[in-house]
């Protein structure tokens, strides 16, 4: 897989460089976000009830620190971006990110989440905590598979978000097996994957954002999260309006 991913990465980098001339900011990674599956429950919520509730569930990497952090983090940015794209629809994005939650911890709260919030879409950011705590990748995959089915039955579409691109911590957190598990479950269960890792790698390699600087400032982090929010909104709208071209994308990974 690494070989294929590596070659794909090489191609992406090349293509991305071409994009970089035309676009700016987060656009250079836009080609890494594509709708592989439809979001029928989201489409129904938009067209029928004119209201869309999205729950973001995840860990610390779905938040930003400090007093203003919440407004700058991607769940809030997603709400703003979606609202702009969907005039006349009441958009609500609820962030339920908590530190150190494994996939199993989060899945435990799903019945309650479905009952209380009745979301049409759950954005599930996961993998990092499991890799850090050394939950087995196979057990992790099993948790995802069971939970995705439960979310679908409970009336929610799902978008997975994988871990951040963080090359410095590769030596202490080996995420590859977890990233593979997420990708696998996404394909098997026809769930969209927001490949945060590939996107951030692209930005880092093209120098769009300096992700590896030691800093306390929120400037870059806020831009990165704003991009996540806008790209997620793009993905959601694409997956509810156009017919996804699955066969083309399946070979990329």
């Amino acid at each position: 897989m690494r070989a294929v991913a590596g070659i794909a990465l090489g191609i992406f980098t090349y293509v991305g460089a071409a994009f970089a001339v035309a676009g700016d900011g987060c656009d250079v990674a836009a080609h890494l976000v594509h709708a592989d599956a439809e979001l029928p429950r989201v489409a129904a919520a938009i067209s029928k009830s004119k209201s869309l509730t999205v729950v973001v569930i995840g860990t610390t990497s779905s938040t930003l620190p400090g007093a203003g952090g919440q407004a700058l983090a991607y769940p809030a940015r997603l709400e703003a971006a979606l609202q702009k794209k969907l005039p006349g629809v009441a958009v609500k994005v609820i962030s339920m990110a908590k530190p150190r939650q494994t996939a199993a911890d989060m899945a435990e709260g799903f019945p309650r989440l479905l009952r209380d919030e009745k979301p049409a879409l759950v954005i599930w950011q996961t993998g990092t905590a499991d890799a850090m705590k050394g939950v087995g990748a196979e057990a992790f995959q099993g948790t995802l598979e069971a939970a995705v089915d439960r979310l679908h039955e409970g009336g929610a579409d799902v978008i997975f978000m994988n871990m951040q691109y963080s090359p410095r911590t590769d030596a202490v957190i080996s995420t590859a097996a977890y990233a593979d598990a997420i990708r696998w479950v996404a394909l098997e269960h026809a769930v969209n994957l927001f490949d945060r890792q590939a996107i951030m790698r692209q930005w880092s390699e093209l120098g769009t954002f300096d992700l590896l600087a030691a800093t306390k400032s929120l400037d870059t982090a806020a831009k990165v999260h704003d991009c996540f929010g806008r790209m997620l909104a793009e993905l959601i709208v694409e997956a509810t309006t156009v017919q996804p071209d699955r066969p083309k994308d399946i070979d990329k990974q």
Partner: protein
Amino acid sequence: MPPIEPAGRDLRLDLFRGLALWLIFLDHIPANIVNWVTIRNYGFSDAAEIFVFISGYTAAFVYGRTMQQRGVVVASARILKRAWTVYIAHIFIFVIFMAEIAYLTRSLDNPLYNEEMGALDFMKEPGDTLIQALLLKFKPTFMDVLPLYIVLLIGFPPVLWLLQRAPTVALALSVALYTLSWNLSWNLPSYPSGTWYFNPLTWQLIFVFGAWCGLGGVKRLRPFLQSRWLLGIAVAYLLFSFLVVMTSYFPRYAVYIPKWFQDWMYPIDKTNMDVLRFAHFVALALVTVRFIPADWPYLKSPVLRPMILCGQHSLEIFCLGIFLSFLGHFVTSEISRSMGMQIVISALGIFVMICVAWLLSWYKRIEGRGSGPQPNASNADLAGGEA
């Protein structure tokens, strides 16, 4: 029953251990394009099985002879001294690792990475971390193999004693311990949570199996090794394993594996060395010895010499490989991750491993000359390269 004395040095052991060391080095550089060549991508088992099996084989070969010639006490003392050496090597590597982490904690300070920073929390309690590392409970990523080897060596003297008297009983006991640990989830505890990544209670099976083979088991198995049927089964199993592993890279073909079969097969556990992994290694070994005999002419060719050299100094080269993979990771994360750089780092790392192995042989040769002729020179050589 006196064990059948294996004659001379089997260069295949050095060759494949050298290969395993190279593969382990490549696998330990995160996000390295070159590690698509490593065998874990093509079947259930990987370089760890090769390494542990050959270590068991050579340990039995070397210390078995000592036990026969000098007695149980001397052989046990030598084995424990070896375990001590490996322990020191492990702690040395750990110190290098901590230095890398110390650098990371300073450079990682970024609000984006608050979560990932948590993985470095052990630096906040260096005292605790140090104690747990000395107890072999705290083992950073990729530093699990040597602790396994230390535990296997510590437990080895009675196993070797029994292997020389009743090899079949020893092997049966090993299988029994494997089965019990597997079913009752026995494993050693880790710090701060969890258990050992390589469970010594299950991985001992491949070590003891290696030792059993090293003490004449290969001769006992000869009729099986020459059976065409068994060869056919082994090849079929390798092919099956290859196809199954391929489905994880090309998920659209996974539908061809029936659901009930997937449920039965997965997870293929590395921590407890799943039976499927063990079988894969045995099949691989069977096919390998079939096509590469001990007197294979290429074993003496200069092309394979570097790999054999590395295999002959496995403890040193293993540690060097871990250090080089840290260094390689540092370069890929701080300087360049380009594909070219990954290839250069991989090639350079292997080149350095070869140079150091060559230097070690040279040093051993001049040392041996300085202290006069040594009757056990060939043994010492094997023992020195045994890890």
